[in-house]
């Protein structure tokens, strides 16, 4: 799963291709020059602060919004010229999934299956499968308004998957989900990627993307930020160390001349290391020095560090 950062054009099959896209709302430039590709068979993270244009970009990818400039293709279909086929190829899960108050979960899914052209019986079967997959079977006959936020998100994901789309666009999919659902979401995304689907996940909760993404696209103020600029800065990161004997650990670090900061009220310390190799060396040295080290972990995820390294103001 190790991320190599976004490298446009390297992978063979572009699931999503965005080139020079701009979109204004009046005087507000929501998307102001985005260029990236998201390969098929992988999960691409779309990372950026609130108001950076993620949702607007997803609307264009879903075929709902026309870019002022630039080209958007999904599954090799131009979203403008081939709008209907592009829409059919895409499964879009908006950040807020509105539900029809009085429709049951099953009915919502069958309605969408029908909208995508399935027969009534196929639609019912598909709805059953998806509800089962999303662990919503018990709620199948309940009106959607009684669902909790997390359940609603799962239903939203099921809805986006109803026609087995080639390209999946998820806008903040994990918000409101409990930890277990988040893990299941990750598993779902992984298995879909393995089946060759293109998955673009936008989020600002970075920890939830950390373990699943293959590529990352950083956006800020409506622009994609060059990953190369982000990567080197991200090399130096904080690691959290913890030993059963905290004093022995600190003594060891002092001797090895490694600067550390001590977090208040706990036995753990944080050191700055550059790259995996440094971490390996530190572990080896600590073991040799008989320090009862039991935990070594990066303080923040790679995404989070890269994100913070963007060093751009929130809008």
């Amino acid at each position, binding site marked *: 799963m190790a991320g190599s950062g976004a490298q446009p054009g390297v992978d063979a099959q572009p699931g999503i291709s965005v080139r*020079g896209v701009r979109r204004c*709302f*009046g005087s507000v430039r929501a998307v102001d020059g985005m260029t990236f590709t998201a390969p098929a068979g992988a999960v691409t993270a779309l990372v950026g602060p609130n108001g950076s244009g993620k*949702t607007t970009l997803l*609307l*264009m990818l*879903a*075929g*709902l*919004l*026309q870019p002022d*400039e630039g080209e958007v293709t999904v599954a090799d279909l*131009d*979203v*403008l*010229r*081939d*709008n*209907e086929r592009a*829409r*059919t190829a*895409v499964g*879009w899960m*908006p*950040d*807020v*999934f*509105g*539900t*029809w*108050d*009085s*429709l049951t979960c099953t*009915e919502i899914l069958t*309605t*969408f299956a*029908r*909208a*995508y*052209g399935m027969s009534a019986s196929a639609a019912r079967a598909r709805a059953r499968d998806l509800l089962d997959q999303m662990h919503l079977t018990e709620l199948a006959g309940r*009106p959607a308004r009684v669902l909790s936020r997390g359940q609603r998100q799962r239903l939203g994901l099921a*809805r986006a998957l109803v026609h087995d789309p080639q390209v999946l666009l998820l806008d903040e999919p994990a918000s409101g989900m409990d930890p277990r659902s988040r893990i299941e979401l990750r598993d779902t995304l992984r298995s879909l990627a393995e089946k060759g689907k293109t998955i673009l996940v936008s989020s600002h909760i970075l920890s939830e993307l950390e373990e699943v993404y293959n590529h990352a696209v950083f956006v800020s103020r409506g622009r994609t930020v060059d990953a190369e600029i982000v990567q080197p800065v991200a090399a130096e990161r904080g690691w959290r160390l913890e030993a059963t004997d905290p004093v022995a650990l600190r003594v060891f670090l002092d001797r090895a001349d490694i600067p550390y900061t001590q977090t208040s009220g706990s036995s753990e310390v944080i050191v700055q290391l550059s790259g995996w190799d440094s971490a390996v060396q530190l572990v080896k040295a600590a073991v040799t020095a008989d320090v009862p080290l039991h935990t070594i972990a990066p303080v923040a995820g790679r995404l989070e560090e890269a994100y913070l390294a963007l060093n751009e103001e929130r809008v």
Partner: protein
Amino acid sequence: MSSITDTDMTASTDTRARSTTMNTWGLSWRGLRTVVDLELRQRMRSKRWLVALAVWFSVIGAMTTLVLVATASMSRYSGDTEATAGPMAFGLITLFVLGAGLVIAPAFTATSINGDRNQGTLATLQATPLSTVEIVAGKLVAAWAVAAVFLVAALPFIVWSMLLGGISVVQVLICFAVMFALIAVVCAVGLGFSAMFDRSASSTVMTYVVVASLSVLTLIVPALATVLVTVDNTTVRVYGLPPEAEWEYQQAIDDWYMADQDLDHSWENGAPAGFPAPPVQKCSWHEVTTQVTHTDRVWWMVLPNPFVVVSDAAPLPSSTKADPYYVDLGHYAAVSGDPLAGIRATVREAAIGPETERDDCIWLYTYLGYNVSQEYSGTTITLTAPDGSRPDYVSPVEPRVVTTGTPVWPWGLGANLLLGAFFFWVAVHRLKIPYKRLRKGTRVA
């Protein structure tokens, strides 16, 4: 951007416009059904609509009861047969149901699109391969079906009025068919406004403004406009006593009244004995200057009025076919009190406009004991002498007759349907994806 990309952009814009249009206006039965199903389920499940239907049913019921009681007592006093009580009750109930239908119809669509948008359910539907027309038409059909249920709920009361007699099934069917069409127009107007405005309050108010304009303004405006088409000093040709002969005759009548103090004369069989005989032999053409209102220039403004459309489309009760006098709509309307026929006769009479020739002479014959009756099927007025003979009097003026020929309702209904089609187009145009422009404050999802 390089110049090469610029030319690429223009080239693609053409194809893009074409395919987007095809996509927008595509309509499939399956797509339409999906949206209709969704909308109906969504609407029918809520308890509110059942409550509304119950309230509606009782209001129409109460109104019908009042009308029936009123018409029954009226016909008892006037001694009319029930054949006229039926049309009167039917007409009143039909107009009331139409009015109530016009009031409730906006509620079914005026917040349909902006409501969905605010709930976040519209964009996910638009993102599917469903075309814009399928979404808009589906919403319209579903709303219309619900409105139709309300109209149909009024049917039992219509049947009740039919029990009074004089009303045929054909009449009921035609009235309802026209009402269904008019309600569909209002639904389309609401849908258009709900796509135009983001706030549901605005779209609801605007829809009611249109409904009010159609039902009230179309009456007020031509009524006020009659002032503009009233012309003084218009010359009208009159066949009757010349001014000096008229003056002499009036003198003679005055003298007779002065001489005879007994005012209890019976006019039952023509003029009482001794009453001065009118000098009908002096009747001739002369011109009179008078004030004339050219209603024929403004009458068409009432055409789009839904009440006028239904009234004009409603066939006359079958009883009128048997009676030759009823060929004159105005006569039938006055006698029966059938409000549909009354509206219809008023509109058509206004369409004919002011008379340019008048026969005053023929009415003088009543003083001679003659019976004056118009032969409405033809163009002559016949006189019948007290002895039953018919003098050879041919009125030089063709009688003005308002008939059921040349119906005007197709124009009114057509205007309404055009209005509905326009607002339907507005709704589709506004929901066309991918959105090129978004109005301020409009959210996509």
